């Protein structure tokens, strides 16, 4: 084997070879650095200033953990934590069970009208979480039509929070569970049938284990969403305190920024833990996914299909009742005394919470967020996935990109006050502008968009970049000629995701909007605060119409695109 070796010019063994960095690679790393810098300014540094603030007194002197000591010795504040935990666990349980049965019906049965149930389930995604609160007031509030169904209990409190939260987090859980149920391998069921395993045993031995990770993951997502949500408890929570509303009250009500920061840290910790565990769990799910599974074709079973149909109809009915009441309230003259129809409630300019300007601002903000967000997120994911070498830098970038998912919107918004409102900050000039709203919203929803982009990019052959390098084509040419066109559907998905969330989000922006940049979702909150419930309902419905239109547009464009590119996508 050594016949061809001339030992003369053999280099000393063990001299580690370092690859010279190509100019392409250098440009890519610089770009990645710029996006990392963006995330640093938009997420990491604000969080840091918030943590610093939590250890300062009102004059800005460092006091260590004194604020935390005060927090934990204030019973009312401490009990908010307990309340948040209890409510979140309860909602998680209800939502996971419901979502599992609903998803099971959609994926594993021959229930009729599946398309309808799929459609109706995403409705809550099109509205701000506040809408459920507003709607519940009309159903069960002091003048609610179904008030008696509560047997004297009040809706303003845990009951309202649980119902309202369940409504708006349901689709989030449902999507994860559907995915988990869709990836199961039909061959497992054939094997079970061949072994004459009973249906119930098959369910517990095959179905449940198969989507176990999906259920756990959905559980964590729901938990974080409810634990950190602020809209529903704000509108329907009454005197029932939760952590997220505490922050709002401390900061907006009492201008006690230090205590707001302390509560934020307390809110951040469980969210980060839940997030980390979820990441670990999902890593296992990926391993399941990679197996070449045969998709399962459900077989009809009249009794089961009918039962599932009834269950799904019930859930769909609740969703329709919820959004239907909001729409009805928006069109009524004077609840509950004058039930004539009117469009007066859409005349937002006479309301106190915010006029049509707020709506227009929202459209602007959502469009900017969708446009710039998609570019930043997709390009960042591309640099991460398709660059070569630089493992440490890449790892750090990925870590920062994952961080926003663990940061509750309120915490992010509050951090922005501390960070950007500081006159010494060179970015201080964006405070109070549209820019800061766009930046915060991109940052807030960065992770899910990032993961969508990464998934799409991972599906592309890694060797494209190798081939392009061998042909000495600069990376940006390959990027624009191949990567972008192939990933266009995923980019559109990211775009609509960012748009919908930007339209409906309240939690982060509520701390940083200014009188010039009032937003529709915040207006709903303020109108509710001012007792202008019909306006709030109408504004929430405006958001819903807009989101539904955007979603429809997205669907049409995607479909058209796929048809046009049919030739190269399918055989």
């Amino acid at each position, binding site marked *: 084997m050594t016949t061809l070796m001339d030992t003369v010019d053999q280099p000393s063994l063990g001299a580690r*070879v370092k690859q010279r960095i190509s100019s392409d690679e250098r440009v890519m790393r610089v770009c990645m650095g710029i996006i990392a810098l963006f995330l640093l300014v938009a997420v990491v540094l604000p969080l840091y200033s918030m943590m610093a603030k939590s250890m300062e007194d009102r004059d800005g002197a460092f006091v260590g953990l004194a604020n935390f000591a005060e927090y934990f010795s204030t019973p009312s504040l401490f009990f908010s934590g307990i309340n948040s935990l209890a409510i979140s666990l309860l909602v998680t349980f209800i939502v996971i069970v419901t979502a599992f049965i609903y998803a099971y019906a959609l994926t594993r049965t021959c229930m009729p009208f599946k398309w309808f149930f799929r459609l109706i389930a995403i409705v809550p995604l099109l509205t701000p979480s506040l809408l459920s609160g507003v709607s519940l007031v009309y159903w069960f509030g002091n003048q609610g039509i179904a008030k008696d169904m509560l047997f004297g209990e009040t809706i303003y409190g845990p009951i309202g929070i649980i119902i309202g939260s369940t409504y708006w987090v349901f689709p989030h859980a449902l999507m994860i569970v559907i995915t988990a149920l869709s990836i199961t391998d039909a061959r497992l069921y054939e094997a079970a049938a061949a072994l004459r395993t009973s249906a119930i045993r098959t369910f517990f031995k095959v179905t449940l284990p198969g989507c176990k990770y999906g259920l756990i993951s959905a559980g964590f997502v729901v938990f974080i969403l409810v634990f950190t949500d602020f809209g529903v408890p704000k509108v329907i929570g009454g005197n029932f305190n939760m952590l997220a509303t505490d922050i709002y009250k401390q900061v907006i009500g009492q201008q006690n920024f230090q205590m707001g920061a302390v509560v934020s840290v307390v809110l951040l910790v469980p969210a980060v833990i839940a997030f980390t565990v979820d990441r670990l769990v999902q890593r296992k799910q990926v391993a399941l996914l990679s197996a070449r599974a045969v998709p399962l074709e459900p077989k009809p079973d009249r009794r089961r299909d009918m039962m599932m149909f009834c269950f799904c109809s019930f859930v769909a009915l609740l969703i329709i009742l919820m959004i239907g009441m909001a729409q009805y309230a928006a069109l009524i003259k004077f609840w509950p005394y004058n039930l004539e129809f009117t469009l007066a409630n859409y005349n937002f300019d006479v309301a106190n919470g915010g006029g049509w300007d707020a709506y227009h601002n929202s459209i602007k903000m959502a469009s900017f967020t969708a446009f710039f967000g998609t570019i930043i997120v997709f390009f960042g994911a591309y640099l991460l996935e398709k660059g070569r070498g630089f493992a440490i830098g890449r790892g750090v970038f990925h870590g920062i990109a994952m961080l926003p998912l663990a940061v509750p919107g309120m915490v992010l918004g509050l951090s922005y006050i501390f960070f950007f409102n500081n006159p010494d900050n060179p970015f201080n000039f964006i405070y109070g502008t549209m820019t800061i709203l766009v930046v915060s919203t991109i940052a807030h929803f960065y992770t899910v968009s990032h993961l969508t982009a990464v998934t799409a990019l991972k599906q592309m*052959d890694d060797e494209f970049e190798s081939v392009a*390098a*061998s042909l000495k084509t600069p990376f940006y040419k390959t990027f624009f000629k191949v990567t972008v066109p192939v990933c266009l559907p995923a980019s559109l998905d990211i775009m609509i995701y960012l748009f919908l969330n930007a339209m409906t989000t309240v939690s982060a922006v509520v701390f940083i909007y200014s009188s010039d940049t009032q937003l529709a979702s915040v207006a709903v909150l303020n109108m509710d605060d001012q007792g202008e419930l019909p306006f709030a309902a109408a504004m929430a419905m405006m958001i819903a119409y807009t989101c539904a239109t955007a979603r429809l547009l997205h669907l049409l464009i995607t479909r058209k695109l796929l048809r046009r590119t049919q030739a*190269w996508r399918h055989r």
Partner: protein
Amino acid sequence: MNEPAESKKPYLKIRALTKNFGEFVALKDISLDIFESEFVCFLGPSGCGKTTLLRAIAGLDIQTAGSIEQEGRDISGLPPSERDFGIVFQSYALFPNLTVTRNVAFGLENRRMSRDKVSSRVTELLSLVGLPDQGDKYPAQLSGGQQQRVALARALATSPGLLLLDEPLSALDAKVRAHLRLEIKDLQRRLAVTTIMVTHDQEEALTMADRIVVMDHGVIEQVGTPRDIYNRPSSAFAAEFIGTMNFLEATVSASGEVSLGDHRFRCDTSDFEVGSKITLSIRPEDIVVDEGEGNQQNTVMADVRYIEFLGSFCRLGLDSAVFADSDVRADLSIHMMRDRDIDAGTRISVCFPENLIRIFALR
């Protein structure tokens, strides 16, 4: 071209190349010369490091230590875009959203070539790989074999000095594979482009390569022409991996003689001391059936356990006390089978010709 003279200057010079993935050593101290216009195959079982070596040569996954020179230029640390090679992968890696023409033109479009020149070069390449009329189709509309031809045309478009092929035929079905094998070889000979192909298929390597580099567990086991490697394997691994080989445990009983139990065979034992335990090997086609009673030199009486019909010849499974538990197979022509009237259960005398027995250290 077949037997490169040692004095000739190598085109590619690999020295002491090592690649670690963490603790795992994927390539261990690889040194190899490849000459201009040569077709070299890296052959070895899956996981032995062939792709790793190819990617190191391309600069796609840089080696941990060691050097590579191409045409006298040290390219050890250069990024792939600064090296001179074209590459074809098992997955084709054709850009799905570009037509065949644009795929082939991909590397030409940023070379300040006029549009006409690009288009005439693409036409030339497509007819070279036998796809003159498929330019407007998308990759997904072509068969696997056609896609691989496009990939080949794309890799050759910029006239690289070195063509790297990583299992280019493994994803294709047997018929297409055999056909494309010949075509690639023919194309390579005509263009005289230095080529390295990775494969785990010995037949592919034997038919296509000028020289074969046999690899196992990250080291080179043997380098040589297909004939060399087949006839004079330097290790039991190479002997077994390429072609079929019978192995029997034996002891060197005297100079020029080995023993299996009481039975003795004459063969070349020059590399071994008397008394060493060795593996005796002989290819099935080298075993001769003779008329004797098993009492001549190097002859054993054996029972035919089974007959495997393989078209132009038959493979016999042989049983004998001398072979103990080893599985010994002999290939016999159809003529011989007919003449001798051999059937399962027939007792025959088989001879291991002295000059065709090879012995290796015990594995």
